[in-house]
């Protein structure tokens, strides 16, 4: 029973930890499917987290916070889009710039506004996305085996967690079954094919980049309004890059993206659990080894040692009409 409770607890925290990854990973999915490489997920999440916390704090409304986060992330996404699509600049350089700009600005402005070393004022109540308890969760929790699954894994998450699931469903559906999705899939592989079919490459890519911004807005909001009660300096702590790794691992597909993020969230949860714990027969497992796994797995996968992750063919390349 004790082991089961622990398992449930680990899964529960895995879900919590994977939510921002799912949003960010889907953001990367949209951007890169359209042919715009996005290593600026981290920065977009960070500005969103800050803007969300600031706006939620000022208005005492988590939803206004979310809106502000989305606006902030979309603004940064448009800078990236402008550089990558209109100016045909280097997308990697632009992504690095976005990340640094976000890290610097949020810390600077956060410190200036709140004078708490970069934190925003702690948020509570309506300013946060609190866990929603589903009907009867407390009662059902008492049922052995199934009860805790309902009470802790299905119930008990903030609205944004369910949004992450919905975003996965929507992304998978739109990419697979709609006109827009087909065009996005095509434009990242061969923009010339889209262009000669009479569809604007520029418009498609901007739309994808904006969607990426919106999703990063959700990711950032979850960090500062759901997971934590306010903004902390550099609170993304590399999650944007983990999401990027997950995207590669998922081979640029929506459902696998969600599951990979869940796996990475699980690794994180296990690492936290195992901190300082001695596992019988093995001894202490170094937490860092688990933390390094997502990165290591991505490198190994990219190098083609297990399977092959092939990015959309035109990703990273500005579209120039050729004779």
């Amino acid at each position, binding site marked *: 029973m004790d082991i089961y409770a622990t398992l449930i607890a680990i899964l529960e925290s895995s879900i919590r930890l994977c939510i921002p990854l799912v949003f960010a990973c889907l953001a990367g999915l949209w951007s890169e499917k359209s042919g715009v490489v996005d290593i600026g997920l981290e920065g977009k999440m960070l500005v969103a987290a800050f803007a969300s916390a600031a706006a939620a704090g000022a208005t005492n409304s988590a939803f206004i916070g979310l809106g502000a986060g989305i606006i902030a992330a979309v603004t940064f996404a448009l800078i990236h889009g402008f550089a990558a699509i209109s100016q045909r600049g280097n997308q990697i350089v632009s992504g690095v710039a976005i990340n640094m700009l976000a890290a610097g600005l949020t810390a600077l402005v956060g410190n200036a506004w709140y004078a708490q070393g970069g934190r925003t004022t702690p948020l509570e109540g309506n300013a946060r996305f609190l866990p929603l308890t589903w009907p009867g969760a407390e009662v059902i929790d008492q049922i052995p085996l199934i009860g805790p699954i309902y009470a802790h894994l299905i119930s008990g998450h903030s609205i944004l967690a369910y949004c992450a699931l919905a975003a996965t469903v929507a992304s998978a559906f739109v990419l697979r*079954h709609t006109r*827009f999705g*087909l065009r996005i899939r095509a434009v990242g592989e*061969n923009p010339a*094919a889209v262009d000669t*079919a009479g569809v604007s490459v520029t418009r498609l890519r901007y739309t994808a980049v904006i969607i990426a911004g919106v999703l990063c807005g959700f990711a950032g909001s979850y960090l500062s309004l759901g997971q934590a009660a306010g903004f902390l300096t550099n609170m993304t702590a590399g999650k944007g890059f983990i999401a990027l790794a997950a995207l590669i691992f998922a081979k640029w597909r929506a459902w696998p993206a969600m599951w990979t993020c869940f796996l990475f969230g699980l690794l994180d949860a296990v690492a936290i659990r195992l901190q300082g714990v001695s596992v019988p027969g093995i001894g202490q497992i170094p937490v860092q080894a688990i933390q390094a796994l997502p990165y290591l797995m991505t490198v190994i996968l990219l190098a083609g040692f297990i399977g092959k992750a092939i990015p959309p063919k035109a990703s990273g390349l500005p579209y120039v009409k050729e*004779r």
Partner: protein
Amino acid sequence: MPAIALTGIDKRFGEVRANSNVNLTVASGSVHGIVGENGAGKSTLMSILYGFYEADRGTIHIHGNEVRIRSPKEAIAVGIGMVHQHFMLVDPLSVIDNVMLGAEGGALLSKGEQHIRAALAKLGHDYGLDIDPDAIVGELPVGLQQRVEILKALVRGADILILDEPTAVLTPDEAEQLFALLRTLASQGKTVILITHKLHEIMAVTDHVSVMRRGEMVATLETAQTSPAQLADQMVGRHVLLDVSKGPAKLGPVRLSVDHLVIKDSHASLRVKDVSFDIRAGEILGLAGVAGNGQKELLEALAGIITPTLGRILLEGEDLSLVAPTPAERRVHGLLHIPEDRQRMGLVSAFSAAESMILGYQTDAEFGTGPLLSSSAIEAHTTKEMDLYDIRPRDASLKTAKFSGGNQQKIVLAREIEHHPKVLIVGQPTRGVDVGAIEFIHKRLIALRDAGVAILLVSVELDEIMSLSDRIIVMCGGVITGERTPETTNDRDLGLLMAGVTERAG
């Protein structure tokens, strides 16, 4: 009422005049061929018709109505479909997704998909264009990929179909099938434009043929009233006759032997099929042919840049794949190479003239000591070469890109000649070069031959081949279609060989 009437089309790309004052009338329900050498402006003209570019001047009439075609979307709207030379397909997507792209028929794919499936089935039935709609395009053979391109146009209701070099990637069998299809389409009232540089295709399938040369439309003829020889004449044109005086060749021993060479490109398609020839010291061997018939691959294989699939290359009897597999080692053995693409291969346009002057020789002892390069030695060398070859401006530190085409070519020429070749392979030495420089380059090559160097000259300019070569071989479709001497041949004869017609013409 003609299907298409183009009047006075002009298009410039910077300094290059790709189309100048082009007129073209295409009869409805016919197959109309457009021939011309690479760079004659055929593709540009068709891109204008398809809205990929807008003409600087001129008008377009489709079925008698004047139209402006500013984008492919507008071209599709007036009933024009195009099959590009490089397919505009999305490899990882299915056939149906590719056909549907841009013509989805609604925000959700499911409805349009039904419609397209039905349309594909009907087209399959009407024209014999059967295809599995759920196959992944990237996994289909090229012939079928091309079929997808044609289906894309037909599903969109195109009644004018443009095909740009459609047989470049096809086997002869597939090409035959394509031609049959084009005839069927025309007989059902569709208008087909076929762009090619292969004369036998024109003869086989078209009703009318227009010839382009250097951006201009030089003739439009009824296919039945013309002959490959006449078309070859029109295509090549009568250039200003170059005056090159050269004495008889003093032939030495065989320097370079090419022995049953077979080359496949990266897409595993055969580019050079069993080619053999020898070059002797003191001889210029001209290799004539329309661009894209395997000359480029042959040159690169000789230079060591790509590896041939089969066959041997012997330099003074030694197998180069064993003694000198890389370009650097071939240089050491005296096999030097003036590449046909000097911009991308022969030079580095961002480098100074001096730096470009040592490309390939950057490890030579004369340009430095140990790991170091000596700027002063390189500059002195370059200045000397600039004097010898009259390269202007005489500024060794000027960026390579700032030199004119002729002077850039002289840099390459100077670099290679001054490294004492035993064998020199020269690709398109005078492409994009002014008349003065052409004469200079020709004289240098003759002088080199008189000094006992074996030279392989690859050129699409027949005059150049005729006036420089001691012997001429002609390539078409990756095989040597004939060998001649300048005394025993003429432009028409060579033109036929270039077109793959091997019977001797008068």
